[in-house]
C-alpha cells in the first residue's frame, strides 16, 4: 500500500485529540491520500478549517493551514483562492460549523462559486462542546439540549447547495469506503465550488446516547440507513448516497437588441429653425416634432405623448437635448423614432 500520503500529515503531533472510534480520522486520512494522489503538495495546497473537532483537522495537515473563527472557513478559503489563484484550497470542517454558524457564508460562497473543495464531517451533533443538537441532527434524536428529542427537521444541505447551477454536491459516509474515496477524488477534480457531505460517526457523544456500544455498530447503522445510487441525479433523497452535479449555468434570457436604423448624413435632412419647430407641437392634428442633438424626430407615434402637447416635463416642438440628458431614461427612447430633419 502506498503510504506516501503520510508526508502530508504532521506525524510529530500524533496521537491526535479525537476519541477512539471517531470518523474524523478516516476523513483526514482519505483526504490526505486523495490530495497526494492529485500530486498536490505543501507548496500549492492550503487547508482551511473552522472550529470544532473536525476543525482540528487542518492542524494535523503538513500544509499551510488556516484555523478560522467559528463558521468563517468558507469566506476565508474563498478569499485565499481569490488572492492566490495558483493555490489549491481545501476546507475541512464540520456540519455545525459550516451549516449552522457558517450558514450565511455557505449560501453566499457557494453562490459566488470559487474553485474550492469543502469536506464536511457531518456527524449530526456538536461533538467538541459535549453533544448538543446541531443543524443536521435528525428529528426526534435525544441530545443534551433536546432531552425530549430534537423538535425540528434537520437542514437539508443538498437541497440548499443544489439550488443554483453550477453545483457539485456529494453525500457519502465514512463506512462506504470506495464510494467515499471516489467522492473525494471527484470533488478535488471539480472546477468550482464542490461540497462533500461525509456522514461520520461520533460514538462518544452521540452514539452512546442513541444506544450504540461501538463505532462499528454505528457504521452498520449507516449501512442500513443509506444506499448508494449511481448515475446522473438531480437530487439525493434522504437515504441516498451519491454525487449530484451540474456544470452549465442556466442560460440568461437573451436581451432584446435595439434595431439600428440607417444613419442619414445630417446635411441631407430638411432644415428647421426653432420657430418652425415650435409649430409642430401636436395641436390640431399636427405631428409632434422634437429636436435632440441637432436632429428633429417625429414623436407622433409615441404612446406616451398620445396627441398631447406635453409628456411630463417634455414639451413638444422644443429642443429637448438638455431635458433628455438629465432624464432618468436614456437617449435610446428617442432613437426609436424616425428622423425628419435637422435643427439650424
Amino acid at each position, binding site marked *: 500500500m502506498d503510504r506516501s500520503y503520510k508526508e502530508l500529515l504532521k506525524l510529530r503531533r500524533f496521537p491526535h485529540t479525537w476519541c477512539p472510534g471517531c470518523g474524523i480520522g478516516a476523513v483526514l486520512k482519505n483526504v490526505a491520500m486523495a490530495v497526494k494522489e492529485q500530486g498536490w503538495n505543501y507548496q500549492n495546497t492550503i487547508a482551511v478549517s473552522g472550529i470544532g473537532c473536525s476543525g482540528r483537522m487542518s492542524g494535523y495537515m503538513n500544509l499551510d493551514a488556516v484555523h478560522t473563527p467559528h463558521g468563517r472557513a468558507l469566506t476565508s478559503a474563498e478569499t485565499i483562492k481569490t488572492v*492566490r489563484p495558483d493555490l489549491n484550497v481545501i476546507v475541512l470542517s464540520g456540519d455545525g460549523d459550516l451549516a449552522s454558524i457558517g450558514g450565511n457564508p455557505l449560501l453566499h460562497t457557494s453562490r459566488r462559486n470559487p474553485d474550492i473543495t469543502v469536506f464536511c464531517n457531518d456527524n449530526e451533533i456538536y461533538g467538541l462542546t459535549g453533544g448538543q443538537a446541531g443543524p443536521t441532527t435528525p428529528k426526534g434524536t435525544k441530545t443534551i439540549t433536546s432531552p425530549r428529542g430534537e423538535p425540528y427537521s434537520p437542514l437539508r444541505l443538498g437541497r440548499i447547495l443544489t439550488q443554483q447551477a453550477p453545483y457539485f454536491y456529494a453525500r457519502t459516509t465514512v463506512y462506504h469506503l470506495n464510494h467515499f474515496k471516489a467522492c473525494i477524488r471527484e470533488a478535488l477534480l471539480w472546477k468550482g465550488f464542490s461540497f462533500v457531505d461525509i456522514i461520520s460517526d461520533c460514538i462518544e457523544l452521540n452514539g452512546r446516547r442513541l444506544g450504540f456500544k461501538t463505532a462499528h455498530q454505528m457504521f452498520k447503522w449507516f449501512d442500513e440507513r443509506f444506499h448508494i445510487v449511481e448515475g446522473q441525479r438531480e437530487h439525493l433523497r434522504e437515504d441516498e448516497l451519491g454525487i449530484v452535479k451540474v456544470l452549465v449555468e442556466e442560460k440568461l434570457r437573451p436581451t432584446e437588441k435595439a434595431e439600428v436604423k440607417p444613419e442619414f448624413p445630417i446635411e441631407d435632412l430638411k432644415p428647421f429653425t426653432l420657430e418652425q419647430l415650435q409649430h409642430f407641437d401636436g395641436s390640431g392634428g399636427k405631428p409632434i416634432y422634437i429636436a435632440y442633438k441637432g436632429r428633429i424626430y417625429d414623436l407622433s407615434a409615441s404612446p406616451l405623448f398620445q396627441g398631447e402637447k406635453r409628456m411630463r416635463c417634455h414639451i413638444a416642438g422644443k429642443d429637448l437635448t438638455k431635458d433628455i440628458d438629465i432624464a432618468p431614461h436614456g437617449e435610446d427612447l428617442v432613437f426609436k423614432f424616425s428622423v425628419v430633419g435637422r435643427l439650424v
Partner: protein
Amino acid sequence: MKDLVSGNEAIFQGAIRVGASYFAGYPISPSSEILQQAALHSDKNPEFRFLQAEDEIAAAIAIISASLAGAKAFTATSGPGFSLMQEALGWGHGVEAPCVFVNSMRVGPSTGMPTQPAQSDLLQIKAGSAGDYYPIAFYPNSVEECFRLTATAFNAAEESLSPVILLADAFLSHLYEMVDLESITIDIVPRSKEPLGRGQRLFTGTAHDKLGNVKTNDPEAYRGWLWELKNRHDRVGEKYPLFEYLPHKSSETLLIAFGITSRIISSLKNRFSIFRPIRIYPVLEKELKEVTQSYRHIIVVEGSDGQYASWVECVLCRRVMKVACLGGGFKLKWIQTQIEECLKEVRR
C-alpha cells in the same frame, strides 16, 4: 494640481498609494463611498481584488485571509458594522495578520442616528473582542491627513503584524477639501509576512507556540505569546507618537479634542491651549503627561460621553472634565458655553 477630494476618497487613494491590493466590505453609510471606489478601481485594475461580502463578519474575515495570502488588505465600515467585525479583529491579532480597518463613526448604539457623526467607538477598538489584545488606532482631522494616515496605518500594520484601525467620522468621510494628493510623498513599508504556500505553518486563533502547535493548556506559552504581542505593539506605537499641540501662553485650561471636533474648536485657540491626539490608541501617555503638567484644568471635547476622557483620566490620575457632543450636535457656540460652565463649576 489641487482637486476637490472627500475624506473617503482620500482614504481609498491613500490605501492604493501604499500598495493595497484587496478590499472587502459591506455597504454602510458613511463609509460606502470607499466600497464604491474599490469596485470601480477593481474594474479597471484586475490585480486589485474586491469583494462585496454578504455581511461585515465575512468582510473582516476576508481581509485577514487575504492578508495571510499575501495581499495588503483593508475594509471600511461604520460603528454597527465594526461591532460585527470584532470577532475577526480578535482573530487578526491571534493569527498576526497585518490589515487595516477603517471605521467611520456614527451615532450609536445599534443603528443609532443614521448618519449623524459621532466619536463613540473608541472603547470598541480596544475592548470589543474577547481577551487581551493591543490595537493601534489613528484618527485624522482633515482630508490630507486621511490620505497620509491611511498610509501610516498600513505601515504600522506591517510593522506590528496586526490589524490597525483608522478612525474617521461621518463629517470627515464626507468632508470635501482642495488637496493635491499626487504631490504628497509617503513612506511605504513592504509586506513583512511570508504569504501562504510555504507549508507546515498553522495560522490559528487558538493559543499556539511559534511552530503553530496548538497549546490549549500551557499558561507559560500563552504569556510568552501575549507579551511578545504587547511589546511589538508598544514598539510600533512609539514609532508613531502623533499629536498636535497648540499652546496659548496665558491659558490655564487645556482642551483635548481629536478628529472633527478639533477642527470645530480650532477657533478657540486664541483663548485656550489645544492638544490633539492623532494616535488614539495606545493612549499618548508620555506626551499627555508632559503637556498637561502646566495646566490647572483639562477639558476633553469629544463626540461621546467621555470615552477618551476616561482614558486620559486613567493615564494622568487626575480629574478631567468633559464636554460630550452627543447625537451629532457639534455646534461651536454650544461647546463654548459648555466649556464656560465646566470652568464655572470648577471655580466655585
